[in-house]
C-alpha cells in the first residue's frame, strides 16, 4: 500500500468517524445558534 493510499483511507475513516460522532454522539451545546457550529447544518 502506498503512502497516498494510507493517507486517503485514514481520511475516509476520519470522515466516517466525524459524521457518526456528530449525529449519534452529540455533545450538549451551550450558547446560541449561528454563533458557531450549532449543529443545524
Amino acid at each position, binding site marked *: 500500500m502506498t503512502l*497516498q493510499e494510507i493517507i486517503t*483511507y485514514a481520511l475516509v475513516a476520519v*470522515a466516517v468517524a466525524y459524521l457518526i460522532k456528530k449525529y449519534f454522539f452529540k455533545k450538549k451545546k451551550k450558547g446560541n445558534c*449561528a*454563533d458557531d*457550529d*450549532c449543529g443545524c*447544518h
Partner: protein
Amino acid sequence: MATRTIKISLIGNPNTGKTSVFNQLTGLNQQVGNYPGITVERKQGSVRLPGNTKGVILDLPGTYSLNASSMDENVVIELLLNRNDKDFPDVAVVVTDVENLKRNLLLFTQIKDLEIPAILVINMADRMERKGISLNIPLLEERLKTKIALVSSRKGTGITKLKELITEYASLSTEPCLNASSIDPEYFGRLRNAFPNQLLYKLWLVITQDVNFGQLERNEIEDSFTKSKSELKRLQQKETIKRYQFINDTLKQGMTVDTAKAKDLRAKLDRILTHKIFGYLIFFAILLVIFQSIFAWSSVPMDLIDEGFTWLSSYTSNNLPPGKLTELIAEGIIPGIGGVVIFIPQIAFLFFFISILEESGYMSRVVFLMDRIMKRFGLSGKSVVPLISGTACAIPAIMAARNIENWRERLITILVTPFTTCSARLPVYAILISLIIPQRTVWGIFNLQGLTLMLLYLLGFLGAIGAAIILNKILKTKFKSFFVAEMPNYKMPLAKNVGITVVEKTKAFVYGAGKIILAISIIIWFLGSHGPGDKMERAEQIITEQYGNSLGEDKLKDAIASYKLENSYIGHIGKSIEPAIRPLGYDWKIGIAIVTSFAAREVFVGTLATIYTIGSGADDEATIKERMKQETNPETGQKVFNFATGISLLLFYAFAMQCMSTLAVTKKETNSWKWPAIQLFSMSIFAYLVSLIAYQLLK
C-alpha cells in the same frame, strides 16, 4: 496579583438594546435584533474591568417582569431566586430604554426587592435630545436607591462609567424599592413569621411562580400559604399597581419630556408600515427587492468562485503526483468544498437584508402585521417569531417557540416551522433555478429567477400555514395565547452590527455546513471510486472491448468513468433506490444526493458536484452548473435537469423534512420521538406526492 472576578447578570425588557450593551462590554460578536425572543438562551462573555478585575457577564433572556409566563422568562427567575446557583450574580445590570423608562422600571424594582445589588443602565441616551427628554440622575439614583449609567450602546458612550460602577458594586445599596408587606400586611406577616430567615419578596415570587429554589421547596410553602388562583392574581395586580405608583412618583420628579421637541415621525411611519393594506404591499415590495438583489448581485462572484474551484480541481489533478490522495483531493474534496463556498455571496446578501430589517426596527412591524394573519389560521401571534426566524435556520426558530405559553400552540408552531424556507435550502434553490429558469426580465424590471425564488419562499410560508390549519383541526386548540409586543424605535442600521451579523451568519454556514459537506464528499468519493468485484479494475478493458475504436479519446474516457461510477458502491446504492424516485423524474445520482442531503440540505449540491466530477473525464474543466446542465439520461438521451425534474426537485426540497438536526431539536423540545417521527413522515410523504404530481404533469 490575583485577578478578582465579578459575576454579572445582564437583565432587561426585550428591545432595550440589552444585546448591544452586552456587545459593547464584551466585544463578543453576536447578533443584535429587535423582535422579542431573540435571546432564547443565555449568552456569556467576559469583560476587563478597572483595577485588575474581570467580569463574567450572563446575557439573560429579555423579560418584562419577574412574573414568568414563558420558558425563557423562567430562566431569569430561577437564576435570581437561587443564591446557590453557580451563576447567581454578584451584581445585576438592568438595561432600560430611555423612551420606555416607565415600563422598564417595573422589572428593575422587582430585582431591587430581591436585595441583589443592581445597577440601572438607561440606554439609548443619544435619543434624549431629539425626543426632548431630560433626566435628573442624582434624584433618580436617590429614589431608586441605585447607581445609574447613562449609556448609548449604539454610539458606545457611557460604557466606561458602567464598567466603573460594576467594579464598585459592593457599595451599592440593597435596600428594596417596595415594602412587600404592603401588598397584603396580614398575609405577608404570617409568611414572615413562618420563614423568618427568608426574604419576603422571594417567598412571594416562589408562591406565585412555578419554580423552586435552593433548599426551600415550593410544596413546603404551599401547604399553609396556598391561596386561590384568583386571589393570587388579585394580589399580583395590587403589587403591580403599587410598583407603578412608585415609578410614576419617581419619574414625575426625575424625568421631564418636552413634547414640543418630540417629533412624531415614528407614529406616522407606523401608520403606513402596519396599515392593513399598504403594510402588506410594502412588505411584499421589500421581499421582491431582496430576492431580486440576491440573484442579480451575487451572480458575478458566484461565477468567479465556481470557475476558481473548477480550475483548482483540474490544476490539482494535473500537477500533483498521481495516486489515490490526488484523486480524493481533485475529485472529492475540492468539488465538495466548492459546492459550499459558491453560495457565500447569496447567503451574505440574504443576511445583509435580514439584518437591516431587524436593525431598523421594521422586522417588529412585520411581526405585528403577520400576527393578524396568524390568528386566522389557529396559530399564536407569537408563532410569527419562529416562522420568520426560520428563514435563517429552523433550529433556533423552534427553540424560539418556547415563548408560546400554550402547549398546543407551541407544538403546532414547532411542527410547522420547518416548512419555512431556511438558508440551507437557498443553495439547492439557487442552482436548480439557474438551471431551469431562464435569466429573463419580466414586466420590464423583474428578474424571472428572482421572482421564482420569492415564490418558493412564499410557498414555504403557505406550507406552514396549511399544515397549521390541519394540525389545529386535529389537535383542537381550545386556548389561545396573546401576542404582546412593543414596537422598537426606528433606527438607522449600524454598519458595524449589520457587518457582524453578515460575517457571523456566513461563517456559521461555511464552517457548520462545510465540515459535514467535506466529510460527506470524502465518503462519496470513496464510495464512488471503489466497488464490489473486479469491474472497477477492469473498466478500461471492458469498455475498450465493447466500443473498440469507435469512440474518440475523450468520449472513451467519459464512458470508462461513467462505467466505473455505475459499478461503484455508490452506483449500487443509487440503483437500488432508483425505482422509488424514478416516478419523480430523478435518476440514481440525484437519489444519492437526496439521501446524503438528509444530513443537511445544502449537501445536495456538493454531493452532485463530487459524483459528476468522478463520473467525468479527469481533464474535464466544466463548472458544477455546466456539469449539471450537460448531464443526460443514457437511456432517453434527454437532459436530466429539465424543467419537469427541476420543478419536481424544487417542490421536494420545499416540503421535505431533510434535516436531521431539526428532528433532533423537535425531539428535545417536545420530549418525545412521536412528534419528530410525525414531522418526518408527514412532510416527506407530502413532498413525495407533490413532486410526483408536478413531474407527471410537466414531463
